[in-house]
């Protein structure tokens, strides 16, 4: 196809610029050597990266967020995969209703869910803040896992599993020997989504957190409001780079394992 739509190309270039602009601005201003966040930067320095990476206030929230993302994925992935498999492979009553229920956290505003949980946990007197966040994140992430795994399972030929059973593997062994290996691209995609979404989640954290537990998005959120600084730009740039990197790795792995 030759350039048939010069106007479209020009307009779209501007839109791509619009998409990239805020990310570029953050990355560029993170190199400013001065104490204040200015754009364009008045020099080039990596000192804020050094400051952020060699300790400081972002370290603990960062590890909290990582712990939360990993724990969420560790629970949401098997739970969602099991539910998706049941919905895809078995016939039973109320299946559609159950599926809608499982996906409903995608429809109900997170904000409402946050208040509901805050009220709920307070009335129960649950004080374990990490546990509160973890449970909430699992509920938010499981629908994404189910959706991704449903698509994966539906692309898979049922007969391949049947072949395994007829050849003498029990249904449970078949699930581990055939189904899961074949679902690998979807599993990777689910894990990736889960890690990123859980790591980035802010609203639920604002409602449910308590003393001692701060996640990285919360720290960044509060710094944006009260403490704009080049080190904020530096930690944001690191997250941007990390997300892009994890995203690219995820895509490459999904593509490669999808091929064989």
């Amino acid at each position, binding site marked *: 196809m030759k350039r048939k739509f010069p106007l479209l190309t020009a307009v779209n270039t501007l839109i791509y610029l619009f998409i990239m602009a805020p990310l570029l601005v953050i990355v560029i201003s993170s190199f400013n050597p001065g104490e204040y966040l200015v754009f364009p930067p008045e020099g080039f320095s990596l000192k804020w990266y050094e400051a952020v990476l060699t300790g400081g206030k972002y370290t603990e929230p960062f590890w909290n967020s990582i712990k939360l993302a990993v724990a969420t994925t560790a629970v949401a992935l098997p739970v969602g995969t099991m539910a998706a498999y049941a919905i895809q492979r078995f016939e039973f009553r109320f299946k559609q209703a159950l599926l809608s229920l499982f996906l409903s956290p995608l429809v109900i505003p997170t904000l409402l869910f946050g208040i509901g949980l805050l009220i709920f946990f307070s009335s129960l007197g649950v004080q374990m803040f990490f546990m509160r966040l973890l449970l909430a994140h699992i509920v938010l992430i499981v629908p994404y896992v189910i959706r991704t795994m449903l698509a994966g399972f539906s692309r898979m*030929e049922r*007969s*391949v599993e*049947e*072949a*395994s*059973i*007829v*050849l*003498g*593997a*029990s*249904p449970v*062994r*078949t699930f581990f*020997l*055939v189904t899961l*290996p*074949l679902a690998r691209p979807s599993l990777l995609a689910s894990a990736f989504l889960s890690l990123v979404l859980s790591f980035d989640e802010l609203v639920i954290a604002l409602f449910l957190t308590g003393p001692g537990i701060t996640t990285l998005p919360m720290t960044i959120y509060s710094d944006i409001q009260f403490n704009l600084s080049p080190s904020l730009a530096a930690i944001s740039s690191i997250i941007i780079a990390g997300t892009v990197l994890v995203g690219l790795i995820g895509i490459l792995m999904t593509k490669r394992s999808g091929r*064989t």
Partner: protein
Amino acid sequence: MSQLIIQDLVKQYGSNTVVQNLNIAVESGEMLSLLGPSGCGKTTTLRMIAGMHSPTSGSIQLDGRELTHVPPHKRDVGLVFQNYALFPHLTVFENVAFGLKRHGVPKGEIKGRVMGALESVQLANLAERYPAQMSGGQQQRVALARTLVLKPPLVLFDEPLSNLDAKLRQALGIEIRALQREYGFTGIFVTHDQEEAMTISDRIAVMNGGRIVQMGTPQEIYMHPADPFVADFVGESNLFPVSAVQPAAGYWRFELPGGHRLSAENAGNGPSAPPAHAMIRPEAVLVQRQPQDAGDTERQGYNRLIGEVAFINYTGSSYLIGLNVKGLDSHFIVRMQNTRKQFDLRLGEAAVVEWPIHETLTF
């Protein structure tokens, strides 16, 4: 004693009966086809034998062992799928070895048995390939090897050839028969393709609406179909309703729509119900240009119709000729071998068809 005995097998989904009171006995080493249109219950029957569906009632016995409630992975029944169903994440070798491992065959023995099975389908040189790197025909042969390596007494075939092109289908059909002689399994072959059923099986069970409507050798099914459905489903046919039926000594006389008078043998001993349909196989019919001078003289022992040539399809080895006959709402078709003699039928011209009275089948 028969090897596989199916008794009063019934499968219902809610109020919908998919398989009704099926009774089949298959001899050891026999190949039985279940033939019928989609939705006739043949696949459901096969899946009940494999254990993928559980029957509503009835029983399935293999070598005197009650299979009905044995879970599918403990049945030792082979199943070959339409879409091959190879494990895409395993090599050909691993695919064939899969069942052996599940059956606890010792490691040292696996390699020899896998290669043996691959050799019998001429694929030993491709053992390290992945299924995606092979043609459809090769994949299906791997699937055969994967099934046969376990030496199952019974192998079920679920339309295994229908994803292949015509030539390959024929070749693989012959190969399956050869493998059956080599391994000695009993086979059940599900298909909707009557030609495939005829070439591959010792016996055919024609199914319709969840029942077996006729069971017999391919010759019996083709030459003596039990009812209009079988006549129509198996092979090409001219099938017409008949009226004004009169019995005569050893014959029926009746009229086709349009008032054409025909005769058929009344093979039954004693009084039988008058037929409602007549059927003539297209290849039993002789067709020629209507001689301009000839009168309407009927040859003794033959039926005769006059029509106008509506189409002529040349297929190389034969011609398929369709005639418009007054009163009939479908073409009267004739299959004529290409005898290399001069072919003198012309579109739109009148032609005479004749066939021996005993070639008129009635139901």
